[in-house]
């Protein structure tokens, strides 16, 4: 009897289904999954220890080291593969922490209102007022250069966007009758926030987060490139590129980590775009209109 009804959940599933057939979404998912697989398993099968210096220095790609060696005789291929296991998990961790922090701050601000809202949102504005990368650099530099501190700095600059989105959704829902009904039935504010409001926040926040993973990888690699993140001899893509600056002739040292960053960031961005289109038909219509030069 209910099978013929197109429920919101079913309609969304159908839309996502159609979207996953879109080539870019599939390419993104395949590439991202491949990199995640590499990140998980690299230590088991890379040909050399990524931090060992036993090979001849500055060897171009060849049979012994398929992507060459760097200026202290480390295998670029092994470092590249091991680097996936450094950057990708940390980027996911950092996005996860930003999502939790930002969503909570925004939800509390939107639900409590008045001075709580004012205070939390002015702090959010304060962070957002600074250019992201520069603020992250300042924080990372003042905490001292380490990968952990780079992640902290990146969380500090990236939570406000989630707070904004979560606050606006909570604001639009907190006056709903069913939220008031829960309060009348004795729900605490925290419980009504959790059961009545946060499930509606999850969708848009996840879309935003998937679009943010690429940015997070760029930010972490960027900080490492500047020497504020991963420290030698850690195999991290940003610091590998930084190491390539000494020897421009040995192009293989910098180009392959650069390509790795490029493919991972693009893969996650494709996934994010696809998810966004699936959740938000309006944005999809606009992007189609923009791509085809028509007016929406």
């Amino acid at each position, binding site marked *: 009897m209910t099978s013929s009804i197109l429920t919101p959940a079913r309609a969304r599933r159908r839309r996502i289904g159609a979207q996953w057939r879109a080539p870019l979404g599939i390419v993104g998912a395949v590439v991202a999954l491949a990199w995640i697989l590499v990140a998980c398993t690299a230590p088991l099968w890379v040909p050399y220890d990524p931090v060992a210096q036993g090979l001849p220095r500055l060897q171009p790609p060849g049979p012994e080291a398929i992507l060459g060696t760097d200026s202290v005789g480390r295998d670029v291929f092994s470092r590249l593969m091991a680097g996936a296991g450094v950057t990708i998990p940390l980027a996911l961790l950092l996005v996860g922490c930003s999502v939790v922090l930002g969503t909570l701050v925004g939800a509390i601000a939107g639900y409590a209102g008045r001075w709580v809202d004012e205070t939390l949102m002015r702090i959010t504005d304060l962070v957002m007022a600074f250019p992201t990368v520069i603020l992250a650099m300042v924080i990372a530099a003042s905490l001292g250069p380490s990968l952990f501190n780079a992640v902290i700095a990146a969380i500090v600059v990236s939570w406000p966007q989630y707070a904004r989105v979560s606050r606006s959704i909570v604001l639009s829902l907190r006056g709903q009758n069913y939220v*008031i*009904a*829960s309060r009348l*039935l*004795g729900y605490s504010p925290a419980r009504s926030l959790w059961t009545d409001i946060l499930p*509606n926040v999850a969708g848009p926040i996840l879309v935003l987060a998937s679009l943010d993973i690429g940015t997070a990888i760029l930010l972490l690699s960027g900080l490492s490139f500047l020497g504020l993140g991963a420290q030698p001899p850690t195999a991290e893509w940003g610091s590998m590129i930084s190491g390539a600056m000494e020897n421009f002739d040995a192009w293989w040292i910098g180009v392959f980590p650069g390509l790795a960053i490029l493919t991972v960031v693009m893969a996650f961005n494709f996934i994010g775009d696809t998810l966004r289109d699936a959740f938000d038909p309006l944005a999809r219509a606009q992007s189609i209109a923009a791509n085809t030069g028509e007016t929406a």
Partner: protein
Amino acid sequence: MSESPVLESRDVTVSYGGRRPVHAVRGVSIRVERGETVALVGESGCGKSSLARAVVGMERIGSGTVLFDGEPVPPLGLRTRKNTGIQMVFQDPNTSLNPRRRVGDQIEDGIAAATARGLAGSSAGDWLERVGLPAASVSRYPHEFSGGQKQRIAIARAIAARPRLLVADEPISALDASTQSSVAALMKDLTRELGAGMLFISHDLAVVRRFADRTLVMLAGEIVESGETARLWAEPQHPYTRALLAAIPEPDGSGRIPASPSAEERRSWL
């Protein structure tokens, strides 16, 4: 204590801020006794919803007091699990239920509110049957029901909490004519069974006449007339009440359209 009415408001005012505040409720005193159904009627914008919201603690009261069982009503922000004796049924059935939760779970919330106050438990399925829906509907989601059915579910949830006062803010105005009176009668039956009082807000005098014990007529933030429903119907004193009664269309087929009162008439009533 047992003598005190379940709801009593004294000189309640509600204002909405701004440079020129709007005084939605201007010093209203009402009483609702146990087991009594009191209808509050008036045109839109007369302040009846503001009064209802003030009574349940959703709206900050400018001055005056609202006593529930002789005790001041705590604001909604300070509600606890012990404090669920007032329940509400809303106008729009589509927003009264959480669209992401099964209706059985939402009725369970009402039952939990009753048991937290030491009252007897019950089952969500029984409540659904009580409001005329199959007990098996507990595992369904709100969007699988019609507006009238959703309103019945919202009523089941409110009544499952075994409130001593049910505030209904235009609970039938979003329903179609065929379900209006059955939903109103259901609310009346259930509250009488519980021995609870009901404050029933409506702009529809024809429905109110059938089951309200007393009727209050509200105009521009004040109660202009109150009394036994039958008396009020038979011999309305205030000209506004007379105008409201005259506005009820008669099924005589002549297509009489009730005239809207003129601005001068309105001024003379205030």
